[in-house]
């Protein structure tokens, strides 16, 4: 059940990328609506897949890296669909769908078997940790896509694919909005993770690479918020920072497990 739903989500996202790319090349209102609908449907499929997994395992799907990659993609799509009420852009649709595909593809290579929760993972704090991470990383993912849109808009102006994009200042504001939303949740990610580690091992902070990179991520976005507030940082530099911030998110989630030695053995 879960597998079929995930496959459907994958196929729909793929369709979403193809249709929105066609729209970029040959603007078409109907096709644009279709591409949005496929992404929305993919979101529904992912939601159902996560529910199916929860039912099959008798717990929330908050324990393994496999589960988190799907939640991560879910969060990004969720914020994309919220932003959709503000403006519609084929470029944003294709970027978000592509990002979701990449994340899900990586997740599919991870062990997916449903196992009962080991004692260390049976923690309310861990659940809060994961929930807040979905929000924070979803919002940051979106701000990264907005940063890319900003760069594109700045380059092409009102020509070509720039036509369907909002004004630069609006993009910049939305980017700020998504970072300002993600930041308090990122703070909660760090706090709940620290409390969990303290309750389970008695070490609230141990500088393992995953923790360290989560902290670095937090610093980058704190830098963005303060530079914007005090120096009015805006425009291309701000867009660049949103992209770098999200690169740090991706590195925390995937790069650290793949490249760096660490003690974050569960996820």
């Amino acid at each position: 059940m879960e597998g079929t739903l995930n496959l459907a989500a994958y196929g729909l996202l793929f369709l979403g990328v193809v249709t929105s790319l066609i729209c970029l090349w040959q603007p078409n209102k109907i096709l644009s609506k279709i591409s949005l609908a496929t992404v929305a449907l993919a979101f529904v499929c992912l939601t159902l897949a996560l529910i199916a997994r929860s039912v099959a395992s008798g717990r929330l799907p908050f324990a393994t890296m496999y589960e988190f990659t799907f939640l991560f993609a879910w969060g990004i799509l969720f914020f994309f669909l919220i932003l959709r009420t503000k403006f519609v852009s084929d470029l944003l649709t294709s970027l978000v769908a592509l990002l979701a595909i990449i994340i899900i593809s990586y997740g599919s290579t991870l062990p997916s078997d449903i196992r009962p929760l080991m004692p260390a993972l049976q923690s309310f704090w861990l659940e809060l940790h994961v929930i807040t991470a979905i929000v924070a990383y979803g919002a940051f993912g979106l701000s990264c896509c907005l940063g890319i849109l900003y760069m594109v808009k700045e380059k092409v102006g009102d020509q070509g694919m720039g036509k369907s994009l909002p004004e630069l200042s609006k993009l910049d504001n939305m980017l700020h909005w998504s970072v300002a939303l993600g930041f308090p949740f990122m703070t909660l990610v760090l706090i709940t993770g620290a409390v969990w580690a303290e309750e389970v091992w008695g070490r609230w902070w141990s500088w393992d690479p995953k923790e360290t990179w989560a902290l670095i991520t937090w610093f980058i976005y704190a830098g963005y918020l303060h530079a914007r507030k005090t120096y009015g940082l805006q425009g291309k530099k701000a867009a660049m920072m949103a992209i770098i911030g999200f690169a740090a998110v991706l590195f925390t989630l995937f790069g650290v497990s793949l490249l760096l030695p660490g003690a974050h053995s569960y996820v």
Partner: protein
Amino acid sequence: MTDTNSKFTRPGGKGVIHLLSSMKMGLFLLLLIGAASSLGSLIPQGEEAFFYKNHYGELMGAFILLLSLNKLYGSWWFILLGAVFATNILLCSVKRLKTLNSIRAVGSVVLHLSILVIFIGSLVSGLIGQSEYLELGTGESIDLATKGFPGYSLHVKDFKIEYYDNLEPKQYISKLTLSGEKNEVNSEISVNHPLKAEGFTIYQQSYGWKAKGYIDVGGKEQQFDLVNGADVIVKENIKMRVIYVPDFDPSSGDLRSRSPLPNNPHLACAILQNDQLLAVEVIPEGATKELAGYPVTFSSYRYYTGLEVKQDPGVKIIYTGFVLIVIGFLIRYLAPLKTAQKSEVGL
């Protein structure tokens, strides 16, 4: 707040204070601490000195050791960076105290000062926090003074494991009694549910088996009470190693247990002379078998529990900081706003 560059160039103490309380400094420190932290995640931490020389070459290795990049997060310069950052946040917040003109601004100051609280908590934790790992068999006690916690003793009444249907562990549970000079605390702890009392936090960390018995050495009974896998010295050059098998499979004779449950407890014993195997026997509970001329009796078995015993007043401070950060955020972002202030806060 506003920075004007002229302030940096002002001579004397005032200039330093201005610099230290500036946002420029804050951003610079964020960048510096972030960069240093990432370096610590790239260079393996806490290895022996020769590791770095082998791995990075003589020169780079010496450089790493000179700057304590092998123990980066505990090095004096990293802690100093943290302290300067904390000072920066403090000064910057103090400066704003004079101009607090909305509830949201109060929230912002609370939010910033709570970072300071966390920093202080981690210093307290590092300076006076103590933590010791110990293993105790069920029924055993320990005087915690021997571990650096005078005035207290700890007794393990029982230990048990709960399993899922597929025999994967669901929870590890120890029943403990912590006795002080005045009080006695009885408590059941498990993973994620430590005991918190009398300034102690005691964590369920590990477990294993212990086996009891005796070995007859030329008519003299020599008792043993060993952790699974440990050795007992029988004579010079001769030792016995014990492996406890909770669910022995007699048909295969395999020393791997069929299940984690003590359904058919046996003790596998090996007599070794200068690490050469002389004899092996698998002894059922209560039985005696002879190994290389030594009769060995396996009397009983029980669990031991691995506990982390901690006293750390810093944690309370850190948790207070966490609570304050959350409160600060809530006020900073959600407190009601007079319309006139909206543009001022920039929302």
